[in-house]
């Protein structure tokens, strides 16, 4: 059977049809164009997705950073002056108020503000967490967070807050029935215990108010792929260019056990007062790199190596350490971003 294309008015002066060759060539060309287009789209789509993943990682981190700085800026100590006995025990610590003999006055706070190396502050790991890195910070802020409807909508209620970076799975927060494989990542974790569980008042020393809810898992991840949190309590740069006046090793403990010194004896500067400023730094890697580095439940060695020996005990090396970290990550071809800001703790009434 043949087909004949017949023009309406002219018959023989026109080419009869494409040859098979021509058609094949055309089809091939079309196919090639399609394939090429497809590959362009596909690659651009992949690029889009990757970029998107990157943006999302950093967007997450940026949002978490904002929330963190907002909450930190509202950290409170509610410091007041109270009496201490001759052994420098505050009235609030005395076992019996009736035997307490005041001798001296000093700053006191029922609350606590604490920051320093995560590895020493976090002794009992929250469930699913296998490692912590860099610094952690624990403080008390009016979050109004409560699990009980009787107390909710009282925004001034105090609760334990804290931030640290930790490596682990996401099993504890995953919906119940999911059987998706555990997702191991470095994350910025937030301690957010409900107000009715705040135990800072029951014991007037130590940090169990933070470590207990921590080990009980009153934590939530607020951003993924955060590998470093550096908290540097300091005065403003005008007042303290080196940044060592408040803390020279990143640690700060408003319940410091340091002895009073001088004549007449004065409390250590950190005791029961909030630092005026915190220089906060987050280092976040992108999801692509994170995925690439993922090695199951073991923390990626490249990250561990990159962080090794940095931001440990000398704030004057902060700039060098940060540079080192950036170099090391770049060496390993790990995409990252550094977020840094200075949070002023607005309740602070710092007096050296």
């Amino acid at each position: 059977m043949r087909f004949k294309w017949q023009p309406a008015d002219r018959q023989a002066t026109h080419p009869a049809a494409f040859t098979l060759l021509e058609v094949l060539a055309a089809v091939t060309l079309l196919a090639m164009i399609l394939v090429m287009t497809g590959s362009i789209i596909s690659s651009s789509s992949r690029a889009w997705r990757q970029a998107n993943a990157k943006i999302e990682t950093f967007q997450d981190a940026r949002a978490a950073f904002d929330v963190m700085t907002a909450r930190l800026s509202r950290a409170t100590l509610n410091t007041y002056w109270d009496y201490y006995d001759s052994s420098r025990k505050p009235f609030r610590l005395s076992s019996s108020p009736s035997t307490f003999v005041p001798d001296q006055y000093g700053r006191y706070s029922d609350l606590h503000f604490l920051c320093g190396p995560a590895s020493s502050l976090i002794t009992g790991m929250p469930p699913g967490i296998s490692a912590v890195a860099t610094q952690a910070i624990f403080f008390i802020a009016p979050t109004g967070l409560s699990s009980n409807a009787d107390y909710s909508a009282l925004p001034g209620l105090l609760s334990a807050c804290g931030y640290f970076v930790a490596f682990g799975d996401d099993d504890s927060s995953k919906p119940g029935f999911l059987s998706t494989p555990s997702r191991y990542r470095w994350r910025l974790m937030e301690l957010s215990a409900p107000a009715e569980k705040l135990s800072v008042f029951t014991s007037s020393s130590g940090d169990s108010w933070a470590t207990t809810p921590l080990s009980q898992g009153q934590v939530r991840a607020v951003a993924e792929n955060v590998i470093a949190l550096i908290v540097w309590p300091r005065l403003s740069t005008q007042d303290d260019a080196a940044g060592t006046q408040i803390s020279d090793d990143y640690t700060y403990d408003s319940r410091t056990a340091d002895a009073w010194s001088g004549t007449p004896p004065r409390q250590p500067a950190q005791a029961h007062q909030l630092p005026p400023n915190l220089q906060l730094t987050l280092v976040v890697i992108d999801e692509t790199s994170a995925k690439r580095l993922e090695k199951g439940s073991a923390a990626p060695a490249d990250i561990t190596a990159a962080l090794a020996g940095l931001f440990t005990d000398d704030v004057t090396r902060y700039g060098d350490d940060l540079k080192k970290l950036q170099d090391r990550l770049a060496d390993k071809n790990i995409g990252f971003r550094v977020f840094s800001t200075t949070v002023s703790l607005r309740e602070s009434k710092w007096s050296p």
Partner: protein
Amino acid sequence: MVAMRMRAFSLVELLVVVAIIGLLAVLAIPAMNNITGGTSMTRAGQIVADQFAYARQEAVGKNREVQVRFVWRDGGQPGYAGVQLWAPAPNDVTSYRPISRISWLPDGTVMASNSKMSPLIAGASIRETNGVFPGRGNTKYCGFRFRPGGGTDLGFDTTSNFVTVVRDRDASKTDVPDNYAVIQVDQVNGRVRTYRP
């Protein structure tokens, strides 16, 4: 020039062409599907997650409570097929109005309503009830609220605050189907996460 008589395609030729096109199509379409990510399940999960995120932003940004309402699907089958956000009217804080159109899930997907797959729905603060939806009339729905602070009125157990989108046919099943999208809300900070198998 001798006029050449061009002959027409042979059936074989045509078949070859069709076969080639077919082959290309067969090769291209799954790729396309992958590229768009447009399976209805993914889209459904996306829609729910986006609505949650939007609700949270509305609550924080406009400093008002925003309700996320799950709208019961048409017909007798179980499951919620749409999401709509409601909030106090700008000029009347005591009267709630929708602030978006109902976002329907793609055909063939639905939010499971049972407590295993969607404990959020089962334990929602707005229990299954009937209400008048503009343009739709009286409809069964349930829902929860984003607070102006960004948190929600959900229970304190994060692991229970999720809904699962399943295929139509899995709507009443309580064993885990092979395709689903889980959308989880953090009750404290309103963060939304999506899980796919």
